[in-house]
Structure formats: structure tokens, C-alpha cells
């Protein structure tokens, strides 16, 4: 019935991505050659994408514990207790490789995959954020990718009915051959109703639910575990095809079935599809599974067991139900017009037995399948590491005109308004979004409580390239700072680690250093890591991307009404700068935009000061003392003030003294962590001063809002004096003009 399957040899195993050592390990544990189907199982489950072979030894460094943590890494998503009986479930994942090959479906199915990770936990998804990285938008190929990715996200998220509330888009030439599509999703669930991906209770029925299985996406996990060459686009058949309508039905059916109590465990069929679920679920529970692949709903004829197990067709779940309650499960899925087919049983003995009708096509221990080898490969700093940092940006000439330099920076694609993308996303469905895209963090209310959630994603590849440890720690600090600026206490973190090939010592070193940086920042800021994703092999023809950890931080506001946004609300508000004075042009957006240089040292990061600054900002927002709060990031203090002026509904001018003296480019555009701009109504200035005095942080008044000009001084010299309208036009059009 299975036809003539290829005879399994070491050469064939190599073709599927396994190494000779791995193949040896398989034959010695099985005591025989694997069958063709079994080889497929190992090639998928032991791929880097599924097994984290090169990263697992490092990931253990991340702090994952905390009083609010309900679920840490290892499940479909992490979960944090937010009070009032509610939990927030969240995770971020990458879909970089598929999105380069086929941007629309690649990005769309990235959204689909992360949504399923959230609702398999029993949570209703309430928000999506996307962190995107592309090459230069003046390049036609990049524009094609941006268009495809944004419309893919829009199509899937909008049709499914989950709002896209934030994220960021940044551009650098290093991403031209390998864009990044990282999608984060949050969901809400009652804290005592979390579901997990477990196959418990020997004899319990195993149900296949959702879409039918086709030949799409076979070897998707393996594809995501290799670098690209000039033939990358020939791999289009490995990209899955999404159906957001079916996903919406699957959501409703799963949540309805979960509410009956008939569901024991559930897992999304994501990477490596059915193979992954039928091995990981029993492996987590110390059980086994016996499934008949002939019963799997199929939309193509003549599919082999290999294809059925490895298909990455979308919108499918595997669930284990309580024995005797099969009819309830079938009835609910029938109501939503979805397949729910009992394909097997949970067994004792710890093996996955896959049959096709009467014939056993695979019989392997699940603990072995789910426990791929871990590698500790050699690592070393890049040869030019010291050289990258040795460059002193102050040896470069100052701009001829600082007003023009600021306007150019505000119009640079990375800093400019991303409304072109965000208006293509539904931002409000669900009636939770209190702060829409465009501020430091999105804020979502939790209905039925006084609380809200703040969420932000951040990651600066240039900074990590120059100093992986400090750069990654800065990404954590920035994401948390954005949440704090909005009034939220950071309570949990997810990350997406986007790097080149770990088989290169300098890449693995970058990765290890970045993990250390994240771990250190999380420890000091007391934010547990509850889930994440590693995406290696982000390189094309030997050119790796900038090392890019994307950090997603979730925070809780106890009083949703006490929140802040980044734009100035009116004239005559006093403007304060919180945080240290030390900044650097090394790795800055200005250095790239004005001089096309990526070099230099990063500003120092004192995590203890960072913690205190964030606490001070939160206290100011919670006391109702701040009318605007804005983190200083790309473009430095000058851009932070300009954004305060022009990103709101009505532009508001501002006059400020950015420094007492020194080089104006450093003072205006230098970037450094732990810095926040706060606007305060004049009548509240005394109260604000008292609060800052208690906070024991460096801070000073720097200026006042109002008028129709942006005037920035160094000492007494007005180095920038421009009309806010002009700044606003540059900011509004800087990215959109490339896409028009």
C-alpha cells in the first residue's frame, strides 16, 4: 500500500538534513535501519527549527521563574497571572524563511501559526504585533517583500478577527536577502483554565481536528534550518498556504470544546505537523501514541505516510479527549463545519506507532524523537570585532545644517511613520485597544476589570552587531521602558532570536553573548522569560543578517485609566529628561542615515539606573503627573522630542536645551539607554519634582511645549529651529513615499 519506498541509507539521511553522527545515533538506538517514514520523522524533529540543537545549551541561562509565571518555556506559549483571575498568554515566533520565498503566504501563515499557539492554551487571542526587518526600501525587490508581508499579515489577521496593535518595521541592507518576520500574539484566559500540549490517560482518544492535510509545507522545518542561496525561490512549495477563515472556525470550535471539560490536551500542528504533535505530546506525559494515518482527512489522493506525517498544512490541531466524551467533541466541531476524526489512542510504553490501515510504518520511542542531540559548537568573536568598536564617530564632520539633518532623520524609513502599514491592519476588533499603533507601547484593556496590558516589541540589530551582549540587554531595557512609559509594570517577556548560521563560530558567539545580555537584563529588571523562538540560518549566499534578538515585553496597568502616550497634548507643558546624559553615536540611526557607517561603541548601560528610571516613569504616570512620556531610542533626544511634537493628532511645537555644550550631533542624535522624555502640566511641576527627588535618578527640566516651531539648543545656541509642519511632513511621508 505504501508503494516502493526508497531504501534508507546514510546518503539519503544526509539529503534530508541529518548528519552521519545523528544517523548513527538513530540506528544504534533503534537497533536497525529506520524506515523511510521514520527517517522523515527524525529529519523534521531533529531539525534545528524544531529541536534547538545549537541553542538549547544557552537558553537555559535565561531566567524563567517569577511569582506571576503560570507557564514558562516548553509549551505552545507562556502564561502570566495578571490578577482578578485572568492570565495573559503570549509568544513570539519567526517566519523569516518562508516570507522571503513567498512574502504574502509566508507572513500570513506566520500570523496563523502564532494565533494557534495562543488558542491551544485555551486563550482567546486579543492582539498581534509584528516586528519586521527589510533591506533598503528604495530597492524594488524590498518593496515587493514589504508589500507582500504587510498584505499577508493584513489578510490573515483581519479575516481571523484579531487586531494588529503594534510592532515595528526597520530597514538595513543586511536584511535585503533575508527579511525578518517576527509575529507576537497575546491572548486572555481564566488563570485556572489553561490548557497544555499533553497526551495523558492511556486509552484516551486522539482526535485530528481542523483543515484537511495536503502536500503543502513538507519539509518546512528543514527548509527553515538551512541558509539560502540564489535558488531560494525554487523552494516555494515548502511554504504553507493559509486559510484564516478556517482558523477562525478552529478557534471558536476549540474554545467551545475546551469549555465542556472533554479536552485533556491539545497541540497545534505547526512545524513538522502531525509528526511533531504525535511525538511531543506523549513525550511530555510519559505516554505513547498509536495512530492510523489512513484516517487522517486528506485533500489530495495517494499521499504517503511520510507526506501525511510531515505535511505542514495549516489550521490543524491534535487533541486528546477524555474517553467516553468523543460525541461531545464531534458535535462541536460539526457545528463549526470542521473535521474531527479519531485517529488513534494514547498508549503506554512510550512509543509512537504510526500505521497505514493494518501496516505499521513507523515505531519509534517518543522520548528519543523529542530529544534531539544538543551541540556545543566552537565559538569565537568575529576577527574584526575590536575594529568595529574602535571607530570614533566624532572624527566625522558635523552636518552643515542641524535642522536639515533632523528632518532627514525623521524621514528615514526606520524612523518615519508606519501608518502605511498599520492602516491596513484592523486595530480595534474586540474593543480592547486603548492605545492604537504609534505610541511607545500598545495598551489593551481587560474587560470586566480595572486593568490593562501594555505591550511592546523592540530590537536593534546594529547595536547587537557592535556589541551583542550590551546590545541585547539594551533591547530588553528598551522594550520594558516602552511598557513602563505607557504606565505598565513589565511582568513577562518573549523573544525571537534571529541570527545567521550557528555553524559559524562568530555567529554562535554573537548568539551566546546576546543570550547573556538578555539574561542579565531580565534578572535586574525582574522580568521572567516565558517563551520564545530561535531562528538560525538567516543568511543568503554567505551574507548573514545583523544579529537581531527581538524582544516582546508585556506589562500590567492596575488602573487602565492611568496610562500615557508619547505625543505632547498641549502648549506650555514643561518637558523633563529622565535618565543619564551618556550617549553615543556608535551604531546610531544618525550615523547610518548621514554617513552610511555602522561602527563605534555603544553608550554604557547601567541596569540598576534603568530599573529606577522605569519605576520613576511608571510612578509619574500612575500619579497622573505626566501628560506625555516617550522613550529616547533611534535618533536620540532630538528625534524623541520631534516625535513628541508631530506624532499626535495636532502637532505641538517645543523648545528645549538638549545639552550644556559639546558636539551638537552627539547631544541631539546620540543614542543611549534609560532615557525618557516626560511632559508635565505647569501646575503639576512641583509634584513631579517631589516624585523625582524620591526616585533617586538623574533628571532635569529641558524645555517647554508650544508654538509651531521645534527649537533645540546646545548651551545658548539654537542649533535646530524648524517649523513643526515641515518635520511632520518628513515624518509622515518618509516611508510611505517609497511604497506609493
Amino acid at each position, binding site marked *: 500500500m505504501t508503494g516502493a519506498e526508497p531504501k534508507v541509507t546514510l546518503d539519503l539521511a544526509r539529503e534530508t538534513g541529518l548528519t552521519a553522527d545523528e544517523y548513527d545515533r538513530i540506528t544504534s538506538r533503534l537497533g536497525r535501519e529506520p524506515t523511510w517514514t521514520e527517517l522523515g520523522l527524525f529529519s523534521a524533529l531533529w531539525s534545528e527549527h524544531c529541536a534547538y540543537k545549537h541553542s538549547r545549551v544557552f537558553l537555559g541561562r535565561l531566567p524563567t521563574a517569577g511569582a506571576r509565571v503560570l507557564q514558562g518555556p516548553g509549551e505552545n506559549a507562556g502564561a502570566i497571572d495578571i490578577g482578578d483571575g485572568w492570565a495573559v498568554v503570549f509568544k513570539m515566533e519567526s517566519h523569516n524563511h518562508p516570507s522571503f520565498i513567498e512574502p504574502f503566504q509566508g507572513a500570513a501563515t506566520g500570523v496563523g501559526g502564532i494565533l494557534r499557539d495562543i488558542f491551544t492554551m485555551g486563550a482567546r487571542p486579543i492582539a498581534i504585533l509584528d516586528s519586521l526587518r527589510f533591506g533598503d526600501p528604495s530597492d524594488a525587490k524590498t518593496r515587493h517583500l514589504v508589500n507582500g508581508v504587510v498584505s499577508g499579515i493584513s489578510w490573515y489577521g*483581519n479575516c481571523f478577527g484579531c487586531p494588529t496593535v503594534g510592532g515595528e518595521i526597520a530597514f538595513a541592507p543586511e536584511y535585503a536577502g533575508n527579511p525578518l518576520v517576527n509575529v507576537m500574539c497575546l491572548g486572555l484566559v481564566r488563570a485556572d483554565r489553561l490548557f497544555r500540549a499533553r497526551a495523558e490517560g492511556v486509552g484516551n482518544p486522539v482526535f485530528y481536528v481542523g483543515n484537511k492535510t495536503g502536500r503543502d509545507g513538507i519539509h518546512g522545518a528543514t527548509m527553515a534550518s538551512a541558509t539560502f542561496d540564489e535558488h531560494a525561490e525554487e523552494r516555494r512549495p515548502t511554504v504553507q498556504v493559509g*486559510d*484564516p*477563515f*478556517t482558523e477562525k472556525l478552529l478557534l471558536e470550535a476549540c474554545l467551545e470544546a475546551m469549555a465542556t471539560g472533554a479536552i485533556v490536551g491539545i497541540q497545534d500542528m505547526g512545524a513538522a505537523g502531525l509528526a511533531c504533535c504525535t511525538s511531543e505530546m506523549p513525550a511530555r506525559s510519559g505516554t505513547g501514541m498509536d495512530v492510523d494515518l489512513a484516517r487522517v482527512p486528506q485533500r489530495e489522493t495517494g499521499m504517503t505516510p511520510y507526506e501525511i506525517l510531515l505535511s505542514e498544512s495549516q489550521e490543524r490541531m491534535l487533541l486528546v479527549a477524555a474517553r467516553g466524551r468523543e460525541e461531545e467533541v464531534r458535535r462541536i466541531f460539526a457545528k463549526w463545519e470542521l473535521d474531527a476524526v479519531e485517529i488513534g489512542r494514547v498508549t503506554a510504553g512510550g512509543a509512537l506507532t504510526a500505521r497505514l490501515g493494518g501496516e505499521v510504518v513507523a515505531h519509534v520511542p517518543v522520548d528519543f524523537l523529542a530529544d534531539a542531540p544538543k551541540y556545543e559548537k566552537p565559538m569565537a568573536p568575529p576577527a574584526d570585532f575590536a575594529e568595529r568598536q574602535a571607530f570614533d564617530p566624532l572624527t566625522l564632520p558635523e552636518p552643515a545644517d542641524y535642522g536639515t539633518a533632523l528632518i532627514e532623520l525623521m524621514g528615514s524609513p526606520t524612523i518615519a511613520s508606519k501608518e502605511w502599514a498599520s492602516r491596513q491592519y484592523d486595530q480595534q476588533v*474586540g474593543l480592547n485597544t486603548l492605545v492604537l499603533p504609534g505610541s511607545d507601547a500598545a495598551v489593551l484593556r481587560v474587560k470586566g476589570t480595572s486593568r490593562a496590558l501594555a505591550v511592546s516589541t523592540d530590537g536593534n540589530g546594529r547595536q547587537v552587531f557592535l556589541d551583542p551582549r550590551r546590545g541585547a540587554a539594551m533591547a530588553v531595557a528598551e522594550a520594558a521602558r516602552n511598557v513602563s512609559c505607557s504606565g505598565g509594570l513589565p511582568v513577562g517577556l518573549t523573544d525571537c532570536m534571529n541570527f545567521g548560521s550557528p555553524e559559524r563560530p562568530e555567529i554562535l558567539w554573537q548568539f551566546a553573548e546576546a543570550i547573556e545580555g538578555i539574561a542579565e537584563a531580565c534578572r535586574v529588571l525582574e522580568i521572567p522569560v516565558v517563551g520564545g523562538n530561535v531562528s538560525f540560518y538567516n543568511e543568503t549566499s554567505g551574507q548573514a543578517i545583523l544579529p537581531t534578538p527581538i524582544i516582546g515585553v508585556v506589562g500590567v496597568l492596575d488602573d487602565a485609566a492611568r496610562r500615557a502616550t508619547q505625543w505632547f497634548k498641549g502648549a506650555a507643558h514643561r518637558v523633563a529628561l529622565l535618565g543619564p546624559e551618556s550617549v553615543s553615536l556608535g551604531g546610531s540611526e544618525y550615523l547610518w542615515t548621514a554617513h552610511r557607517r555602522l561602527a563605534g561603541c555603544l553608550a554604557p548601560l547601567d541596569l540598576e539606573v534603568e530599573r529606577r528610571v522605569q519605576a520613576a516613569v511608571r510612578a509619574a504616570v500612575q500619579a497622573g503627573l505626566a501628560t506625555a512620556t516617550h522613550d529616547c531610542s533611534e535618533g536620540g533626544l532630538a528625534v524623541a522630542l520631534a516625535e513628541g511634537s508631530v506624532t499626535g493628532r495636532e502637532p505641538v511645537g517645543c523648545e528645549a536645551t538638549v545639552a550644556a555644550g559639546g558636539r551638537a550631533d552627539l547631544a541631539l542624535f546620540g543614542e543611549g539607554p534609560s532615557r525618557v522624555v516626560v511632559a508635565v502640566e505647569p501646575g503639576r511641576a512641583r509634584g513631579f519634582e517631589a516624585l523625582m527627588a524620591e526616585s533617586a535618578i538623574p533628571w532635569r527640566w529641558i524645555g517647554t511645549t508650544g508654538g509651531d516651531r521645534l527649537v533645540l539648543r546646545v548651551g545658548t545656541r539654537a542649533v535646530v529651529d524648524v517649523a513643526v509642519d515641515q518635520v511632520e511632513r518628513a515624518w509622515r511621508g518618509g516611508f510611505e513615499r517609497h511604497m506609493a
Partner: protein
Amino acid sequence: MRFGVVVFPGTWSDCDFHYVISEVLHEPVRYVWHRDRNLADLDCVILPGGFSYGDYLRAGAVAGKSPVVEALQEFVAKGGYVLGSCNGFQILCEARLLPGALMRNECLQYRCQPTHLAVENVETAFTRGLRLGQVLTMPISHGEGKYHADPEPLREMKERNQIVFRYAEADGRVTRAANPNGSLENIAGIVNPAGNVLGLMPHPERAAEAAMGGTDGLLLFQSLLGSLVEDGSFLKR
């Protein structure tokens, strides 16, 4: 007044309408499954936004032939109120309960943004509490909201005062720049000749609380509730 919110496979504004009716307006409301034909207990049926049946054939096309929409014909003939927003408007057009059709946005992209609506007809149950020329702010969220009608039906609609809302500037001027999707003559919402079926692309349920950015959407409900309670003696603002 008893409301029903219809749920098709793929509907997603159902929970939002239900929330606004029960938690903001404190009126009785229940969900109506798309296979349900029994609407006898309801005064007003809401057809919410979303992608009914995935909108795979044409937005609203399959839903327009569903059992609940078949039942709506009789409900409407008996004078029951129907409000269709977004996908609901598309379904009402597909079901011929309203004239015209909704096509792909002229920009060929999905649009989610706030819009201003100039009120052109205050004779309907949904707009009785409004002033002629009043400007409401409500967000849109759709990919297929470009209203189209042929010249003859358009003439008839004007004759019967069926155009209720047009996309406008904040000051009420109806301009090309204020038209987010290329709709014919900036049409954003229309009624049937009897005035008991309203279809509009914007989302009134998303403009029902100050925390969500505005409360203009509530005015439609308040008009409806006021018109029932005081029957014509509704106090105009």
C-alpha cells in the same frame, strides 16, 4: 427593546455589538446562529462585521443566502429593525434588502482608520436623534467598502432620501480626500425605502465608549431606543 446579533461562521464584530448593547446600553440581547430562522422575539437584528463564510466567493454573497437572512425578509416586511455594519452592509446588499453593491476599495488595500460621516437623513429610526448635517466620527475596517449603484437606482435612492451617511471632512464638507475607499458620491450608509433597514460600512460599536475614542456610534442606538419609547416625540439634540 430586544436585540439579536447574528453570528455567521467568520463573523467577528458579534461580541463587540453584544458587549455594547448589554454593557453600555444595558438592553437585552442574544446571539442568533446563522441557521436560526426564529426572530419572533426580536425588535432589532444586527448583522455585524467580519468575513462571513470567509467572504471567499464575494463579500457577503454566501451569507446573503443563509437561513437567517431568508428569515430577515419577513422580519423586515413586518417592520422589524435591521442594522448591518461592515460585512453586515455587504450581506444586506447581497440579499437585496438594500440596493447597490460593495466592491474592492479603490486603493486595493484594506483600510482601518477613523472617518467622519455627514448625516443626510434624520427621518430614519436610527438617525432620528441626529441633526441634518451633523458630523459623526466612527472608524472603518474593510477591504471591500466601495459603494456602487447604477444611475437609475441611485436616482431612485436620492428621490426616496435613502442616503443616510456620506464620508466627509471633520467640518462636514463632502470631498474626494475624505473618501477612504472610492465609494460612489462618498456614500457610507443607506436605508431601505421603508426606513427600517440601515446598512453602513463604519463600525458604530467601535465608537460607543469614550475610552475607545468616541461615542458617536451610540447615537444610532439611542435614536432607535428613543424612537420606540417615545414614538416620534424623540427630542432632537
